[in-house]
């Protein structure tokens, strides 16, 4: 019994991290390619150690990082493991590496991610002490941590001669956000090569401000025609978010202008930005746009998916252009209006094959059971039957198989052709439960 207990105790000691001192000693001397393969062994040990015992490993790693004679590679790997298990305890040791050209980034692997104000404090303390180039990394970490107390410390780096450091300062202030950061960014000057970075940072920072302030900042950047189109589009987006009512007419002006160099970007904004004023303004302006614009804008309204656009969209049902009509019906279907079903069903029988195909395709994508029901009710109409059958085939709807079989036996030639053309989901044994 005693012998068994002794064996158990010995095995336990061998497996405990405190007893695996060799792995950490090897890691302290580790270089890539060493036979000891210490980094891999250490990682394996870490993965196999229960979380409750991580503190013991952390202590070993802190000692390794602090030791003057540990290799650079050994310290780098220790920092990697501290990224996973490091706590406040490791901060002083790791922060000591921030001034090292290679190890500074490794130190930030844990410092940036540890949820403690002490990590930010360590980064801030190191900032004035490191080289201009290494400042960039520390500032990036402070920005990613959204460390509001770092704003004043970061500000001087806006004028750094190291472009990477200056850019990091701009972007980090933007990520931190708030009035103080915005005020500093507003006063900052940038060389030509960094002007876009500064403007982008001002726009991003504005997202954290009150709407009136954001409107002022984004409005001014947009209004300055010397700014690049990319920046002006971003500024307009900021304006949409801050003051949709003010931005909407600007959006309409640009999307109506086929020659506008910002049109492509603004069409994208129109598709993606949640803003009720935008839906209303763009759909109300539809009728006054040239036909090619109408088709593009209709698709964008379909992407928005806002049913409030239906008034403007449905006004185009009477367009003299069949392409515009089709696009309007398609959009109506996408935004959930079932009033488009019957008109589209009529178009599925258009003599122009291109139009009938587009109508079938438009009905095919509307995700609404009402479509199947409405189409089923129209099958018996000899004028609509063939096109409607094609639309039902396109939708993969098999719930009306019996009706269609009856119809093709007694219907017109066109109906027979539509009904008997191979239909992949026809097999009567598999009836849709949709």
């Amino acid at each position, binding site marked *: 019994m005693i012998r068994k207990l002794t064996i158990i105790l010995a095995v336990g000691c061998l497996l405990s991290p405190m007893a695996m001192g060799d792995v950490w000693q090897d890691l302290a001397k580790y*270089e*890539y390619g060493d036979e000891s*393969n210490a*980094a*891999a062994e250490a990682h394996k040990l870490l*993965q196999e150690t229960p979380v409750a015992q991580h503190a013991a490993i952390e202590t070993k790693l802190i000692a390794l990082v602090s030791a003057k004679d540990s290799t650079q590679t050994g310290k780098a790997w220790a920092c*990697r493991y501290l*990224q*996973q*298990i490091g706590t406040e305890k490791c901060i002083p040791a790791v922060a000591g590496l921030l001034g090292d050209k290679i190890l*500074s980034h*490794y130190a930030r692997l844990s410092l*940036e*991610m*540890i*949820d403690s104000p002490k990590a930010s404090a360590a980064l801030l303390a190191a900032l004035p002490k490191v080289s201009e*180039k*290494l400042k960039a990394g*520390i500032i*990036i970490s402070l920005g990613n941590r959204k460390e509001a107390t770092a704003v004043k410390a970061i500000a001087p780096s806006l004028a750094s001669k*190291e472009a*990477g450091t200056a850019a990091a300062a701009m*972007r*980090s202030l933007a990520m931190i956000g708030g009035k103080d950061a915005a005020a500093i960014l507003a006063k900052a000057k940038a060389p*030509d090569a960094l002007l*876009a970075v500064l403007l982008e940072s001002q*726009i991003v920072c504005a997202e954290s401000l009150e709407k009136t302030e954001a409107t002022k900042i984004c409005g001014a950047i947009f209004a300055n025609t*010397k700014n*690049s*189109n*990319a920046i002006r*589009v*971003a500024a307009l*987006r900021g304006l949409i978010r801050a003051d949709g009512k003010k931005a909407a007419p600007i959006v309409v002006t640009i999307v109506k202008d*086929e*020659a506008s*160099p910002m049109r*492509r*970007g*603004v*069409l*994208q*904004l129109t*598709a*993606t930005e949640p803003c009720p004023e935008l839906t209303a303004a763009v759909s109300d302006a539809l009728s006054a746009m040239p036909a090619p*614009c109408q*088709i*593009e804008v209709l*698709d964008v309204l379909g992407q928005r998916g806002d049913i409030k656009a239906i008034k403007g969209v449905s006004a185009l049902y009477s367009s003299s252009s069949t392409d515009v009509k089709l696009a309007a019906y398609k959009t109506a279907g996408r935004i959930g209006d079932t009033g488009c079903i019957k008109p589209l069903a009529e178009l599925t029988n258009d003599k122009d094959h291109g139009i009938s195909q587009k109508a079938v395709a438009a009905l*095919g*994508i509307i995700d609404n059971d009402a479509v199947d029901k409405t189409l089923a009710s129209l099958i018996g109409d000899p004028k609509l039957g063939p096109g409607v059958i094609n639309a039902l*085939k396109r*939708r*993969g709807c098999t719930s009306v198989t019996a009706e269609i079989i009856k119809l093709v036996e007694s219907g017109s030639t066109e109906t027979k052709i539509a009904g008997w053309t*191979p239909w*992949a*989901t026809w097999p009567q044994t598999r009836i*849709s*439960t*949709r």
Partner: protein
Amino acid sequence: MSKLNRRRFLKGVGAAAIAIPHVITSEALGAEGRPPASDRITMGGVGMGGQGSGDLRGFMGDKRVQVLAVCDVKHGALAGCQNSVNGRYKNKDCKGYLDYRELIARDDIDAIVCGTPDHWHAQVTIDAMKSGKDIYCEKPLSLTIREGRKMVQAARRFGRVFSCGSQRVIGDYGHLAKAANSGRYGKVLVAHANPGGPPRHCHLPGVPIPPNTIEWDMWLGPAPWAPYNPYRCGRAYGLGGKGFRTWYDYSGGMMTDWGGHKFGGALHGLKLDHTGPTDVLYPDGKDVKMLTYVFKNGMKLVHGGGQKYICEGGEAKPIRGEAVPPGLRWYEDGANYPIRDLANCIITRKRPFRDVEFAHRTATICHLGNICYMLKRSLKWDPDKEEFIGDAEAQKLIDRPRRGPWQI
């Protein structure tokens, strides 16, 4: 449809070198059925290894596209791709760059293909979008969850069209998605997808860099500094240790590399590629045999067990030529491949089939799986806030600090 007015587009763009081909070929003037220059989509390629150069060739097959420049930090890949483009157009106009920032600064380029290793995807594409470029980016979208969200934000902020790769989502798995959503089998309950496993850390020794072969510091970019070894940055597929896809610092392993295809396909068929799971269950060998993602609506996605959908009525079996059920996203406007789809969408401004948001949600599934395997336990996830719930250890793995001065 209105024309893409490129010359007006150039007006008002910030100061940058405008590079124009020395020779305007007859092709540029619209001979041989090609659109005139003003209706072209001009393109640059960044990261022109095997996959990237293949994508670029795919775009060159589209008459609307003209490739003007390429970039790679490997000298051989750069020269090879440049020669390939010049050979195609029978001129010597394709400019080569070692630094992508010079390429994206060009005002005459509308869009870029990004075929770099995964650890560069976010930086290159975000910087390019800030310069007004539309994007085709190879899968997997990102190296971390937070990177992916920032890529979506940049696309929306700068009004860009962004398509991620994965021709297989529809090409290989679309027929399964159609069957699952046809209604023949009732409601979908579980999807299975079987990409391979996670990456591992690289311990390869450093070797001298052969002269004029690679810009090593640039290849590393935002990743931690490590010594050069050809197998660290190689192009080999799989987890065999001879290519970047094996290594944690540059890739999510096969989990992301094939996850972009297989999880992408599964999410597409589940119609859940606009959201994420609430739980990631680690296989305990008892109730949970394989890593399982659970969604708010009760659907599940399992890592392993083939590529299939299990519905109320059994496993969904595809039928040849089956129609696309309504409500299942698909290519539009005659596209049958993401490359053509993006080219269409650059002109129409429609959302591409593999829009960056869907690609991000797919990549997130892959990253969540890798984190789960790393921590060896189940996780709780908020798909709206994109945070772990009450899990500081997991939350630390949602992003990786970038080496300065790289910042997104």
